[in-house]
């Protein structure tokens, strides 16, 4: 975690008094803690394009994993008011412009997200994409990237498969394919919260298997 603290240093002054500072202020878990002692925030986002430079965040969903359990009480789903029309991506996300009427301002959602994320390890299935968008709006409001500890279930699965010296076939790292390897039931995704829930189930399944009844230090998941 010290590496992360180091990377945060140059931004410290810039973010004074913001929600991001409050988030950073919360103590981070030690990398030697057992995964069950760590609080995770499992996140998924839907965007209008896969390219963060042109696309916009449309919705975000998350759920908290604490003591190895997913708490459904913590599940949240927020639609975000888009600046441009939703356009083509509607076919992927089933989000149409009029769905976004109830959407909240991006800033509000971001501040609430940072509140919940404080002291937690973020979890994504394919973090690169979601993080690009989160960092983009973070920079826009706080002139600083998110800089939170992150577990990427996709990368974890990839390295597990590589360690077994298996050639990775196309589609094998997709969320459903990964879930199948842990005997998790079929899910119907393409909603930020449903995908976040599915990722959270994958996280606890993967961690349980790797812990194999013993302890699994956080460092092995990062």
């Amino acid at each position, binding site marked *: 975690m010290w590496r992360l603290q180091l990377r945060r240093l140059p931004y410290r002054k810039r973010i004074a008094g913001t929600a991001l500072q409050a988030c950073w202020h919360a103590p981070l878990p030690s990398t030697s803690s057992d995964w069950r002692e760590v609080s995770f925030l499992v996140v998924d986002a839907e965007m209008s394009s896969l390219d963060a430079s042109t696309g916009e965040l449309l919705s975000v*969903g998350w759920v908290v994993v604490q003591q*190895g*359990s*997913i*708490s*459904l*009480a913590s*599940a*949240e*789903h927020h639609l975000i008011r888009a600046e441009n029309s939703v356009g083509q991506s509607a076919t992927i996300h089933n989000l149409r412009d009029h769905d976004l009427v109830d959407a909240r301002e991006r800033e509000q959602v971001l501040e609430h997200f940072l509140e919940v994320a404080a002291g937690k390890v973020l979890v994504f299935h394919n973090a690169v994409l979601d993080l690009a968008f989160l960092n983009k709006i973070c920079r826009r409001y706080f002139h600083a990237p998110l800089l939170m500890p992150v577990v990427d279930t996709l990368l974890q699965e990839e390295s597990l498969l590589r360690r077994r010296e298996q050639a990775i076939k196309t589609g094998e790292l997709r969320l459903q394919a990964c879930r199948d390897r*842990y*005997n*998790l*039931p079929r*899910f*119907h995704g393409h*909603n930020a*919260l*449903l995908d976040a*829930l599915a990722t*959270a*189930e994958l996280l*606890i*399944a993967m961690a*349980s*298997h790797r812990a*194999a*009844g013993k302890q699994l230090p956080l460092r092995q998941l990062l």
Partner: protein
Amino acid sequence: MSAEQTATAQSENSREPFPGLDTPELVTIAEFIRQTLPFNDLAAELLCPVVAKILVQYHCKGESFDATTEARGLRILRSGAVELRDSDNKLLDRLGEGENFHIAGLNAERGEVIATVIEDALIYFVPDDVYRSLREQDRHFDRYFSGQRNRRLRRAARYQPEPNTMMQEVRTVMSTDLLTVKPGDTVQSVAQAMSARRVSSAFVVENDQLLGIVTDRDLRVRFVAAGLPPDTLVSEVMTADIVSVDGSATLFATTLLMTQRRFHHLPVKINGETRGIVTTSDLILAKQDDPVYLVQHISRQQDVNSIKELVSGMANLMVQWVNAGMRAQQVSQVLTAISDAITVRLIQLAEEQLGPAPVSWCWTGFGSQARGEQLLGADQDNGLVIADEVTPEQLPWFAQLADFVCDGLDEVGYVYCPGGIMAKTDEWRQPLSIWQETVRKWARSPTPDAVMRVSIFFDIRCIYGDCKLAEALQETMLDQTSRNSIFLAALAANALDSKPPLGIFRRFVVDRDGEHRSELDLKKRGVLPVTEIVRLHALAHKIRAVNTDERLKALAAGKHLTIAGSRNLADALHFVQQLRIKHQCDQIVKGEKVSNFLNPRDLPKMAKEQLRDAFTIIDEAQSSVRQTYRAGMG
């Protein structure tokens, strides 16, 4: 609002069935939970807050935990499988998707319980406080969990559907004894064939094609009244272009059709093929299918053949009774009453031939007939007790009587006992004192063979004659057995022989080979174990009753069993019997041979759970038998 509009409004409602759920994404979880017992009956207002408090957990195959290592609460299996075992490592239950368990809840009743994950499991965990408040708020929900699993079963055993004969399918009352003739046959030969078969109609068939039907009425109106010659061809008097009815039509629809079009005979088609015929009198009979009439009719028959004819439709009658809502216990009572009536009538017919008995005697029924628990396809188990003053010269009278009655029973459909337990066999036709000596011998040295015989023989009931003789014999039996712990232990070993198929619950234990592979023998696995356990307790406590329900009542009244224990066994027995009868009815309707074998996979979810509950209760009762009668014997 039109019907169509109503339907639309309903489907819109059902799209949002969980108004109390703040996060619509959780609906899938709520929907899953609502498909499981007992959440299926829970109101949405109660269910939604529960969903929001659920913790989702994952356990790998091989993990195990008990009430002390994991948090308390109700665990619902979203996927995977879990085994529950007691501290002796005995399997209590095996649970799969959609089933739930509460370790601490089990703990209270059975000592320590250990849950072991046997397939990677995703679990919806309902914390204990939420679970408890749900039980307080909803009586139905509470009942599901209270007093173990028994009440669920009890409700199933007591459930009585509305009797409605007129909604039965016509195939259940149709006659399948079809007479077919050719169009080129003469009217006279057809009339003779109809008289010989005692039917009132015949199908005129050529090249497998049904051309027409000829009935008594056709013969009268178109042949006799028209004064045609005897060699007139049947094609000239038959009714062509016949209307038929599908086997699945209700009696109501069929009756309506027949009265409106003034038909007296109507062919019944199943899958497009003519398989039977229904007449107006069949429909009237269907309404007067009271078993009392049948019993009365039996006593008026003058020979074996007419009795046989009278009861030939018994299988179909049973289907009607069951469809009309008659319960398993009542059905077996009625079937026993019928076999009693047949036995009595056969004895009377024999006495008419042989003259009066030289000394007093009585005819006894054994096994299921004695207990009043007969079903279709029962074989005969009977015997004859003769007063001690009988002289050797008088014995042939009894042998002749026994032959007549046993042969008659076999002819009517109660086949000879494969083990020879019937009055026809010399050994089972004895003076009282010899019987009593035999009983003492069995009780002194309970060989496996003796125990097997006893298990049939000790369920004894007087069916005809001087019942004091049977009572005296029963008195000897009870005297010999009630304090004879060696004999009771041997009997207990026999009762423990057939284990209920607990343990393979996602795949019931089924027979491994032969014709009934992957099927469950409901009689051997369910009915016999209960009967044997209850008989054992009854013999140990000198209870005279032989009917299992009556024995259970007497055992509870004498405080030899707890009221709950006796009720549980009765419920388990009734449930298995009900399933068995229902299954037999299905077989009869499909035209299959009646058997006790059932594939548990064909059962609906609820019935599967109830069957498991029944087997759990039987298993518990066997454990208590083991402790009481075989303590220290392994």
